């Protein structure tokens, strides 16, 4: 499976709330939904845990380390300007950011 994004690409985490619609299992933390980040590493393809969790056939999805500015996520926190946060996110949760 070809990865859509490459290291350095700016991305946005989809602001979607499947939790509100059905019983789901999601590995994208709530505090990252809608946030802008940068692809750090392309990790390869892994079976989609959203399907594995319900014993459904799980297609492999490209997985990425995505880097965020810690202060942008938690402006009220006490982080330094250079502090970062990395989460591992599947491609279907990421959108390209243009410009």
């Amino acid at each position: 499976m070809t990865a859509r994004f490459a290291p350095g690409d700016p991305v946005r985490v989809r602001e979607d709330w499947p939790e509100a619609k059905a019983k789901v299992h999601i590995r994208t933390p709530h505090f990252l939904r809608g946030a802008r980040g940068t692809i750090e590493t392309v990790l390869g393809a892994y079976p989609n845990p959203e399907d594995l969790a319900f014993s459904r056939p799980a297609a492999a999805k490209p997985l990425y380390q995505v880097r965020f500015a810690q202060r942008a996520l938690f402006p009220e926190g006490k982080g330094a300007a250079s502090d970062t946060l990395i989460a591992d996110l599947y491609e279907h949760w990421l959108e390209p950011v243009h410009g």
Partner: protein
Amino acid sequence: MAEYHHHDHVHLDHAPISDHGHEPRAEYRVLERAVRELLIEKGVVTAEDWRRQIELMDSRNPSMGARVIARAWVDPAFKQRLLADAKKAADELGIDTANAPRVMALENTPTRHHLVTCTLCSCYPKAILGIPPAWYKSEAYRARAVKDPRGVLKEFGTELPDNVEVRVMDSTADLRYLVVPLRPAGTDGMTEEQLADLVTRDSMIGVTAARNPTSVS
């Protein structure tokens, strides 16, 4: 919900506990035995499997990870292999990671410090470090590590200047993270074994640095 659990009647007479190490409530003590007996009677697992699995768990502890880190400190080629594929590198030291999830080692530098958490559950490199400490699985740590990492570090006695980037790793998916702490100053003449004594569990999670040699007798 099955009625024999009396869930509606679970009274929480203490602050929420998300940790281990407390004797279970009576209903869960009984349920564990019932489930275990039934699984063994049905041949899903054997009593021998169960005993061996507990032995395997008991055999895993942070000293395995400490040996990996100490080797990386003395052997640059090994460190490169560790950073490229941590499971394979651990295998070289006789640590069985065959059935474990992928592990990525993260090297701390004078300008970057890694702190590992799992905000969604309790992901941890168990094959190399054993069972995580109770605090790692606590709701307070999971909630705080991403929002106030420097506050968490301070609580563990770790203060870093602002020019060191604190990088929080939220283990949200298929990777487990192992921090390679900085080799402490004043350790030039030390053997690999002596160095391993400086590598604590907490330094491989990233809440502390490795121990200073002067603090070890």
